[in-house]
């Protein structure tokens, strides 16, 4: 009987700003710091996220968890920073300085850019840390739009359709960006890791 009653009552998930900081501040801070290497800026972004969320409390429908909702707000703030830092935001075309990795005539690797074997799966913790630092450096060099899309896919495991919708790119363009970002990142790792 009781179960039946529950089944008919709407699921209402309340949000409780009085406990936000305790529950989510560390998670949000780590999220930001993993993407922007600036502690002060990240602290500010976390605070701004809470305040922005307060103003949009009526938009919280309980469809996603509080944590997901707050993280989404923060993500847009991080993307904004990237957008400001990087003027090539709107270009899906290669950066002007980006090399041609493939021969335009037949798509073959150009000799200088063909993958060579390298150590990118180290077991040693020191080497892993080093690799993480290089990876971060290479990620920072990607155009902002590429970085956002690449990290949403690879770090946040977001669905492709959601990313396309949020970033306003077609699905064809999405795959082009995912591909170019990876080729670029791999080349950067090879160069920096030498």
């Amino acid at each position, binding site marked *: 009987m009781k179960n039946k009653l529950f089944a008919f009552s709407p699921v209402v998930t309340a949000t409780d700003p009085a406990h936000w900081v305790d529950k989510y501040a560390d998670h949000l801070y780590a999220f930001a710091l993993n993407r922007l290497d600036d502690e002060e800026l990240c*602290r500010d972004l976390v605070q701004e996220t*809470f305040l922005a969320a307060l103003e949009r409390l009526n938009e919280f429908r309980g469809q996603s968890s509080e944590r997901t909702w707050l993280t989404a707000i923060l993500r847009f703030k991080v993307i904004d920073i990237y957008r400001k830092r990087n003027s090539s935001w709107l270009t899906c075309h290669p950066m002007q300085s980006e090399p041609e990795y493939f021969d335009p005539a037949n*798509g073959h690797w150009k000799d200088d850019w063909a993958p060579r074997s390298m150590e990118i799966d180290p077991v040693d913790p020191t080497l892993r840390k080093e690799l993480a630092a290089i990876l971060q450096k290479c990620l920072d060099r990607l155009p902002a739009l590429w970085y956002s899309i690449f990290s949403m896919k690879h770090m946040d495991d977001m669905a492709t359709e959601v990313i396309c919708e949020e970033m306003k790119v077609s699905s064809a363009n999405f795959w082009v960006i995912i591909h170019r970002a990876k080729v670029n990142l791999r080349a950067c790792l090879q160069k920096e890791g030498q």
Partner: protein
Amino acid sequence: MGRIKKIMYDCHRATYLIEKGQHVPLSPRERIALLIHLNACSVCRLFRRQSRLINRAMHGLFKASAAHTHSLDESIKREMQEKINDRLPK
């Protein structure tokens, strides 16, 4: 150039399919083209291996650093919560 030969040369296309195939199933035509290419091209096979390792590094390394390095000072947290409380309806 014949179609097969074209596929065998086209590393640009092959690496594109490698990336796409990591996230969604490829069409039968795409799958066959990629198989033909990879069978002939050791450089793209190496690319595929490195690409997967980069995916793993993206996941593993960042998750590890998120797990235990960053947390905010208690005093900063108190300040944050106070700013929120100020704006809550009394």
